[in-house]
């Protein structure tokens, strides 16, 4: 693989993952309890509900140095809001528009429904996202 620069080879994307206290964070905990591996560049911040994430936070995270933001949403399981999935989708659209306006690829934000036993799906999704970001390269191109 001589056509890969050293920078590209060593690039290890940093991902901020938002989870939810009752549903997806236990799912991510389960990935750990099951000793499933994903890159340590993934850092999780847990919230009560993903519909409470402000789009400004997503932009802030990317501007400050995260290469991607992953939203581990409750999907249909949210116990707070029946229209949680709809609200979160709307928030994501706003955040993607903000990213795009600042010249970032909207693919740097991804959402997936992760349930409280979704250890396997979380691990494979986040690895796949990690690879996507690796292909995109660092968000901040100095």
């Amino acid at each position: 693989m001589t056509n890969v620069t050293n920078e590209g080879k060593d690039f290890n994307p940093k991902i901020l993952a938002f989870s939810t206290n009752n549903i997806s964070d236990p799912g991510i905990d389960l990935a750990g309890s099951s000793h499933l591996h994903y890159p340590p560049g993934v850092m999780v911040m847990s919230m009560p509900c993903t519909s409470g994430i402000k789009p400004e936070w997503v932009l802030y995270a990317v501007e400050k140095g995260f290469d991607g933001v992953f939203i581990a949403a409750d999907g249909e399981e949210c116990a707070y809001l029946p229209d949680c999935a709809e609200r979160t989708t709307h928030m994501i659209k706003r955040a993607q528009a903000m990213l795009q306006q600042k010249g970032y690829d909207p693919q740097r934000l991804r959402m997936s429904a992760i349930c409280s036993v979704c250890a396997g799906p979380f691990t494979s999704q986040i690895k796949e996202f990690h690879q996507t970001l690796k292909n995109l390269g660092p968000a901040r191109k100095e």
Partner: protein
Amino acid sequence: MSDRRIGVYICHCGGNISDYVNVETVRQAVANEPGVVVAKTAMFSCSDATQQEMIQDIREQNLDGLVVASCSPKLHLPTFREVARRAGLNPYRYTQVNIREQCSWTHTNDHAGATEKAVRLVRAGIARTNLTDPLQPIVIDTVPAVLVVGAGIAGLRAAVGLADLGLSVYLVEKSPAPGGRVGDFGAMYPHGKNGRQLIDRLVGEVRKRELVTLFTNAEMVAKSGTIGSFNVKIRVGGKAPGEINVDVGAIVVATGFDNYQPAADEYGYGMDGVITLPEFKKLLDDNAGELEYNSRQVKNIVYIYCVGSRQQDGENPNKYCSRYCCNAAVHASLQVSEKSPRAHQFHLYRDVRTYGKYELMYNEAREKGAVFCAFGGDEPPEVVSGPDGKLKVTVRDLLTYGEELAIPADLVVLVTGMVPAANSWLTELLKLPLGQDRFFNEIHPKLRPVETMVDGVFICGTCQGPKNSAESVASALAAVSQGASILKKGYVELEPLIAAVDPQACDLCGDCLETCPYSAIEQDTAAIRINSAQCKGCGGCAPVCPKGAINLKGYTDGQVKSMIDALLKEI
């Protein structure tokens, strides 16, 4: 710089963390973070000795913030909040950082990576703690009374249990008499007891208790207030109609289920001799001697299982298993064996779920001659009516290498399951969330099985999902314990991590008012306020505000952004 005084403890967890994360490196990397005055490692943070040491540090060093980096907050957040409280530190100035489930255990293959990540996570926890305010739990006095909606077996048992703990009970039943579905049954599995007699006995127990008031022909029509102090309006019909207002501290919903009603022609439903399981059960209960249907002797019975359950297609399919129907059908089959020992019985099933000790019932049915055939979900049996008017069921039996069987039948029993009761008005009134199966949803099926997202409203029995009578009663008693444990204390403490409006930033546009399904956002002429007893702390309103004036306590703009900065700081 920070003028805070924060104590940070990094846990080895025996080796669960320190085998993969260099905890001493982490300690050194965070010891000089803003606000940190104590940074220690501990073999087991949750041990009594370490808890004592933390309390001592908090007191001696006059700490105003606490961070423990250990396991998942699901395990020990309450433990360390309690440590803070015992030391005189406000519990909401505590932050738990998960460096076990979300760090050491998931990066067992990368010690350097895990250690670097742990540093970042602990720094974020410290950053958050720097911006915590002391919060007081919201305290509400409770009324020692409970409204129980539905007087079936679950509601009746809940009423008796609550009264025995000294609580007043208003038991509201919409039909003219208590008893629900079980009140219509004769002999029932697993105990062989008679449903009608069971209910008569329970109603007798209810009548003995002065603390219970039973309203029949009655419905709850309005509800206001919150946990500890609801005001409920009950409309009573019948001979002396009227409306009554009662104050209660909690509400137990026990509104039961509906039977699945097959569509016209589903497995021949509508043909003479094709009936559902509840119809068959009634036939058995009403027939004293040998089994007859429309005055004809019944010699051949074919049961078709999973009718209306485990559906994959169609509009709003019932994807779930009702779990009681296999047992009920096998029990009915045993009753037939007793009444008509010479009858032939064929059970066509997809999977048999006679779980637990009900397996014995299944064995007994087979020993008495019942034949069980398995069919594939994609190849359901067919019911046809011959020229002579006789029913015939054809099925490919997976147990005999896919042999095609044609079984003549005097009676075809469609083993139907439970569906949610049609009571959308109640869902609307109580703002109860529904699960994917459209039954009422508990917070957690195992950890918090009778609590709902609406504080003070409990669910039990089959309104929550299919159950047999014994399971319904067990869940009713769980609701009794949960409800009483709150009301007997005399007050409730609610989590203060709720939304807050910054009056400086708010321009009263009102965009937030409609977004809260719990009606927790209120507006008067001067300001928009959050009703602290109503707010569930989901934060769904925060991104809606165009001015950014709404923040969720514990997850404020400042906290989230400072955590992001801390996660990204150079190692």
